[in-house]
């Protein structure tokens, strides 16, 4: 089996696992991790496409590689923003649940808003 077959199957599996975690995980932080796993699978699929497009002396097509590098940085920014939102939610309500019925009654925000 070639690297493309092995890693291609794995990348598809990672997308599936990430999607399942995104839907089924109860904690928001776990959803963020699952979403990152999904993203890593999508990036790897790009890498496989680039590997198949190896030509002109390159082991991997440079165009998808450049797109993935940009994607990794954007994914990190989005993760940091999502975690910032989550920590702020925790700071204000004292819990991180997304379930409005089960949400704890909002406590007064010590920082005054």
């Amino acid at each position: 089996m070639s690297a493309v077959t092995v890693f291609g199957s794995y990348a598809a599996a990672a997308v599936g696992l990430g999607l399942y975690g995104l839907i089924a995980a109860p904690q928001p932080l776990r959803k963020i991790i699952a979403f990152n796993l999904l993203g890593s699978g999508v990036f790897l699929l790009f890498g496989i496409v680039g590997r198949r497009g190896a030509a002109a002396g390159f082991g991997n097509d440079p165009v998808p590689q450049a797109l993935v590098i940009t994607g990794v940085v954007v994914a990190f920014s989005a993760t940091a923003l999502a975690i910032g939102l989550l920590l702020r939610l925790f700071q204000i309500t004292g819990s991180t649940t997304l379930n409005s019925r089960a949400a704890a009654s909002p406590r007064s925000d010590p920082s005054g808003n």
Partner: protein
Amino acid sequence: MFEIALAVVVLGLAIWTIAVPDTYSATVGFIAYGLLVALIWVRLDAVDVALTEAAIGGGLGGVVLLGAAARLRGTEAMTNERPSLTVRLSAAALSASIAAALAVAILLPPNPAPTLAPEVVSNAGATGMANPVTNVLMAFRAMDTMLEKVVLLLAIVGVWSLASDQAWGGRPGPRHQADPNGVLAFLARLLPPAGIVVGIYILWTGADHPGGAFQGGAVLASMWLLVIMAGLMDTPPVRSRWLRLVLVAGPGLFLVVGLGGICFGSAFLAYPAAFAKPLILSIEAAMLLTIATTLGLLLAGAPERSAER
């Protein structure tokens, strides 16, 4: 053989990350996962991506997740109400069919596979740089790279907006204290001089070899954070003017050069051929500063203390 072993270990870590009940363990699993995925990128002959993935995906991303997992540990008992079995089974069926469809699509590609590599080679002389990935990032698809700088800026604006009224404009994160004679303080004095040189070298060598502003910026950001965590330096107050100037330096210079392309060249972001390499290297230098600062500040999070304290 090595590929199969690597894929099995990575798949095991991915399953662990999704399935383990404890969030902290899942986070640790995800960090190990990020580092091993960098190895996959090396095996796929994409060393530039491997460097980025190891530094940003595995390293800094792991630190953000770990910090959040530690702070939210107490809430776990409150939010472990899983969705019903029906929801979980449908989610599993949906995910499995999407994974299967992707596997079919990726394993049965058109033959010959589409590639843009020959175009990259035939235009490589236009910029005077030998690293094909840097060429794509900075010249052929410069618009993506510029907009990505804008995304970094938007992310930092978003994170800062989460500050409470009292902490607005103040310093992100707690003031770190460390034993001034301890290992952390020692490393924070020893490593940054070498780390800064390595970061700048990675930027410089990115013109011709794997490397570039993203990877170098991540190294610089981790050096900065090391000094902050050792308590040798405090996080800067976000109202500080120089900080904001550094944050807009990368996208700003990129925009100026892009607009210059309209005035003196043929199109937005068209570099005049004679100055392509110096222009790209100056944009990359400004980007390095912006990326390092933004990544560090994204890790530090929303302002929590007023600037005076």
